[in-house]
Structures are given as structure tokens and as C-alpha cells.
């Protein structure tokens, strides 16, 4: 159990929950924790590390568990296990980092790890202006491009549209993406069609986080233990990426 040291609103439905934990503070970009809110459920969360010894989760409230985590206060105890999963293969040259919603978390961590703003473009996709998060912090880590579906901030259109335009410039040696699966699938397809190395950090429902339960499977891969980060080619080979998910009973469903 770790104690929450701070809570900050990012948008009306997104909060960042800070805590101290040496293990989580050492999490690599793309790694996640299983986070338990006693009485409120457990869910996988991408780990944001920043301050020495400190770490954070950025959570959007939607289901019961994420709403419980969203609702914790400073001083509350939450359970964390992990960090689990792999990390990104950071290439040379100019890099496109595309994040949608709380999918920005691993992109921020990745940008910190690259630590060279001159070769990083951070594409932040959101439905509408108030949902744009981390803008100020991102500006210190690379060139920021914002897209909103409704055009209320930055370019109008989806993050896939914006990524298509950016990748079309031909300047990128690699692209990295995290966000809703259809968005990732669109950007991965764009990058692959242009021969740009691309990796995505996948989010799927998880129970164990360590490759036992199989809940997060995608084809023959397990997001928790084979991922969360996969190469675009591997994702395409699963035949399920962006197309099929499994419900709580494990029944394959189309997106």
C-alpha cells in the first residue's frame, strides 16, 4: 500500500494522483501498475514517474474502478503492484509521439526519456479543448501539436488525421502512440504504409497483469506480459489489433 501525496485536476474528468514509491518511480515508459482502491476495485494504470522517488497515475473516471481511483484523497492508501510490462525501442532521428487522452502518460514518460526536445514532436489528441492535458509540461519536452475533434483547440480533426499530415512530411524515423485502440490502429497503419517504424502501447482490460489470466490477449500475444509495447508489424499480425476486443466473459467482439 502507498499513501497518496497529492491529487491534481487535469480536466473536469481527469485527475493525477501522486504518491511515493521507489519501485514505481523507476518504472519505464509504457510500464503499468495494477492499482487497487480498497472497496473500489482494481485497474491497470500507466505509471508516470517524475520527482525523485515519486510517481503518479493520471486517471479518467468512467467505470467503477477508475471512478474510485479518481475519488481518492491526499493521505489515502492505495495498493500498487508492478511495474509490469516492457518499454519502447527508442530510435535515432526525429520522433513522433502521439497520445490520446490519458494515453498521453506513456508518451510524456517517453519524451522525458528521449530528453532531446529538438527531435521530438508530441501530438496531443482530444475530443475538445478542455480535455487537452499535460500541455505545458509537454512543451518543455518537444514541439507540441494539438488536435481536437471539434476544432476547439489546435487542428480540427482526429489525432489520426493530424498524424497522417505529420507523417506525410516524411521527417520522422519513428512513431510512438498510446490512446484509444482505434486511434492507435489508424496511426500504426499510417506509419506502416509509409515504412516508418512504429510502436504502440496497448490498453486492454486486465485481471492479473502478469500473463496468467489471459484477459488482455490480442491474438497470440498478451498485452500485460508481452507488451504493453508492440511493434506495428506484430500488431498487424495479430489480426485483432483495432478490430477485435474481448468482453468480460472472454467473448471476442468487434470494435
Amino acid at each position, binding site marked *: 500500500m502507498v499513501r497518496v501525496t497529492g491529487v491534481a485536476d487535469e480536466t473536469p474528468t481527469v485527475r493525477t494522483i501522486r504518491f511515493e514509491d521507489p519501485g514505481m518511480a523507476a518504472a519505464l515508459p509504457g510500464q503499468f501498475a495494477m492499482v487497487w482502491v480498497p472497496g473500489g476495485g482494481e485497474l491497470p494504470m500507466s505509471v508516470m514517474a517524475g520527482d525523485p522517488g515519486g510517481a503518479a497515475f493520471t486517471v479518467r473516471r468512467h467505470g*467503477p474502478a477508475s471512478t474510485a481511483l479518481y475519488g481518492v484523497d491526499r493521505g489515502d*492508501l492505495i495498493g500498487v503492484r508492478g511495474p509490469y510490462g516492457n518499454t519502447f525501442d527508442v530510435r535515432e532521428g526525429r520522433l513522433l509521439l502521439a497520445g490520446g487522452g490519458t494515453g498521453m502518460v506513456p508518451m510524456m514518460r517517453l519524451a522525458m526519456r528521449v530528453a532531446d526536445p529538438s527531435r521530438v514532436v508530441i501530438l496531443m489528441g482530444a475530443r475538445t479543448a478542455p480535455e487537452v492535458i499535460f500541455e505545458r509540461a509537454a512543451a518543455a519536452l518537444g514541439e507540441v501539436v494539438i488536435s481536437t475533434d471539434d476544432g476547439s483547440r489546435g487542428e480540427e480533426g482526429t489525432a489520426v488525421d493530424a498524424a497522417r499530415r505529420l507523417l506525410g512530411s516524411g521527417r520522422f524515423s519513428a512513431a510512438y502512440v498510446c490512446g484509444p485502440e482505434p486511434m492507435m490502429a489508424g496511426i500504426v497503419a499510417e506509419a506502416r504504409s509509409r515504412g516508418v517504424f512504429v510502436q504502440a502501447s496497448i490498453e486492454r482490460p486486465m485481471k492479473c497483469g502478469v500473463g*496468467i*489470466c489471459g484477459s488482455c490477449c490480442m491474438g497470440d500475444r498478451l498485452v500485460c506480459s508481452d507488451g504493453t509495447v508492440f511493434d506495428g508489424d506484430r500488431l498487424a499480425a495479430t489480426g485483432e489489433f483495432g478490430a477485435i476486443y474481448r468482453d468480460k*466473459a*472472454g467473448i471476442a467482439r468487434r470494435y
Partner: protein
Amino acid sequence: MGLATRVAGIDLAGPAMLASGILGISMDVFRRLLDSGAGAVVSKSLSAEPREGYPNPTMAEAAGGWLNAVGLSNPGAPNFANMMRGAPGVPVVVSLVGSDPDEFVSMARLFEGLEVPAFELNLSCPHVEKVGLEVGDDPELVSRIVRSLKGAGVRVIAKVGLGSSDYLGTVRAAEDAGADAVTAINTVRAMSIDVHSGRPVLSNGFGGLSGPPIRPIAVRCVREITSRHEIPVIGCGGVSCWEDAAEFLLAGASAVQVGTAAGGNPGIFAEINSGISSYMERRGYSEISEVRRAA
């Protein structure tokens, strides 16, 4: 020197099978594990209807192993049969959970024509009421279920565990009713409570303990069964390396199942095969069954 073996009429490419409930909802994952050296794979326990299972937390680390109460989440036998139909060439031992003979038989019938070397009956899930242990604790019911399935012409493996009656009575009932093999044991009913919140660590409260902590209990059960019964036994409980697999064989098991330790490590089957193979070579054994007879 062969790792291939035959248990209850099922041909196994190696002595280590994937246990039920692990990684068990994707035919692609099953194929990957069979390609990685698993002797066979067992599906999640399938019920007549789909089950969502319990909400998270459904798994937590405990005592060097894992405590789980997934709640038998599964796509249901009809959906799983369709998944198998869509992925030919991947034999799967199908685990079934239910509460009466007719239910088991009608589920088994869904798999006619598919590559199902055997059905494993989950008579020992420790964290769902009315099925699992409540069935296994009733030897007379076990007997009727096994007889019905044998009457339907399928191979039957009874998976037993430590419930509230003598599990050896369940073994006897299954054997007498014509079961082809027994898998021993399931997870052991257990609970952990977080002292900071005062709450059980699993949403269901009670769960099943798996992994290294239960291995000595499982080895004991395998020895107890094989010293009293003729029915072949598949050892299950905490197998994490080739030595553990060998220990179960020495206890009398004909094969083993790997559960928790396959988590995040599909390479474990190849590791076990390689270790057992060297062990057999050092001892001059040419067949898995010789390990069993050496104890």
C-alpha cells in the same frame, strides 16, 4: 529417449500441460503454447452460459504464490466450441464446470467433431458456489456426472481439490464411474486481508491459492492417490521448473499441469522439457513412465 507420453488415452508431446484457467481464451495463445512445448492445453472452465466473473481485484500475490477469485469468467461452452471450429488444428482439453449430469453432457455434445482429446471436469473450484467444490464434495453426484459423460463416449479427467469432504472419496467415485484420469489438485481455498484497509484483497473475499505454496500439498495428494488407486494422475499445483515436474512424476503422476508459472513465461514448457530430458538421460530412462516408477 522420448518426452512424448500417453495419459488416459491422450497423446502428449511432453509431460507438461497448460493448466485450466491460465491464458485460456485465445486459440492463438493455445497454438503458441503448443508450439512452445506444452504437451497439451486445457481451456478455462466453460459453463453452459457465458460468465463475466467477479470484478477486480480478482488476483493478488499471496505467500509467494497467487490468490485468485476470477469467478469462472468464460465465454460459455457454445461460444468456445465456435472458437475451436474457427481454429482447426489446435487440440484443446476442454474444462467444464456445471452442477448436474445433463448439463455436462449437453456441453460436451457441443464439441462433437472438434479436436477435444478429453474433457476435464472442474470439480474443485474453491470460490464459486453451487459448482466446483460443492459438486466435488458429493461423490455420488460426481459418479453420476462421470457415468453420463462416459456414456456419451468421451474421455473424462476429473479435477479434484481439497474441499470439505475427503477428496479421496471423489477420486474413488470418479475412478469407479469410469473416469480416464484425475488431475490433482485445484487451487486451495484461501483468503488474504489487507491490514491497512481491513478488507480482503479480493473482491470475492475468498479465493484459491496457487503457485509454489501449494506444491507440497499437491505432491502429497498425488502420492496419496497413486498409492491407493490405479487411475492415472495428472499432477497440478505450483510446478515452476523441471525439478518440480520431476517431483510430481516421482510422486506417481503420469504428467503435470503448469498454471501460475506459465504466467508471463510461455517458455516454461520448453524449460521443463529440456530439464526432464537431461534428467532422463542422466538416469538412463527412455520413457517418462520410468521416472514415475523410480520412486
